[in-house]
């Protein structure tokens, strides 16, 4: 790879790695698995850097697929009991950890594909066409995945007495209705 291409790749990695890891984490629910998925996707992108038109979409697709695949691997499902140090109980006066766990549980109630669709569309701000490209489906399917994901997320958050708001959400809901 030429020096200027490598510099462009380095800048791309530096700017995208954090958001890619968030996408992978929201999809698979484990930081280590998420980081593995992102690193593997970026390593595979390196030799193809000059050949890919939209590296951002290409790598998001690979990260999404890797995160889904990682959750399906049998050894990822296994949980050893007994080799880990016990968690130390620490007081949480602000309740932030408790709230994070409740929000995480609400997000986990949404199927992984729909969760990824919602994050791609409304958190990372991809267009419907790009979301469909990453999910490898038609625009109509992507639209329904986002819509169902939002509905499911709203439902599970309502159980925690949290209302999902936002101008984009309202526009989206009225457009789908």
């Amino acid at each position: 790879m030429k020096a200027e291409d490598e510099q462009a790749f380095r800048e791309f990695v530096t700017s995208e790695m954090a958001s890619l890891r968030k996408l992978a984490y929201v999809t698979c629910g484990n930081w280590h698995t998420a980081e593995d998925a992102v690193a593997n996707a970026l390593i595979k992108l390196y030799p193809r850097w000059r050949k890919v038109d939209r590296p951002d979409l290409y790598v998001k697709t690979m990260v999404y697929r890797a995160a889904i695949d990682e959750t399906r691997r049998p050894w990822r499902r296994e949980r050893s009991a007994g080799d880990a140090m016990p968690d130390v109980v620490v007081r949480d006066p602000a309740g932030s950890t408790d709230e994070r766990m409740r929000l995480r549980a609400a997000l986990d109630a949404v199927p992984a594909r729909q969760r990824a669709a919602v994050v791609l569309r409304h958190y990372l701000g991809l267009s419907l066409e790009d979301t469909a490209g990453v999910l490898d489906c038609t625009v109509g399917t992507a639209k329904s995945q986002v819509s169902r994901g939002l509905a499911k997320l709203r439902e599970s958050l309502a159980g925690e007495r949290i209302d999902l708001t936002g101008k984009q959400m309202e526009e989206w809901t009225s457009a789908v209705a």
Partner: protein
Amino acid sequence: MQLHDLVDAVTGEEPPMARTADDIIASGRRAERRRRAGFASAGAAGLVLVAVAGAFALPT
């Protein structure tokens, strides 16, 4: 609550990255070398195959 706030809250306590951009680039270089070596081996194997097939096909 907005979706942005929700995702930020859920991913709020993210551990620091174990790999840096330099680690990714070093691994990418190794992957590229392996890929090129694979292509070279496949090409050499193809040439050998053609040579052997040619030797058998030629009338003695």
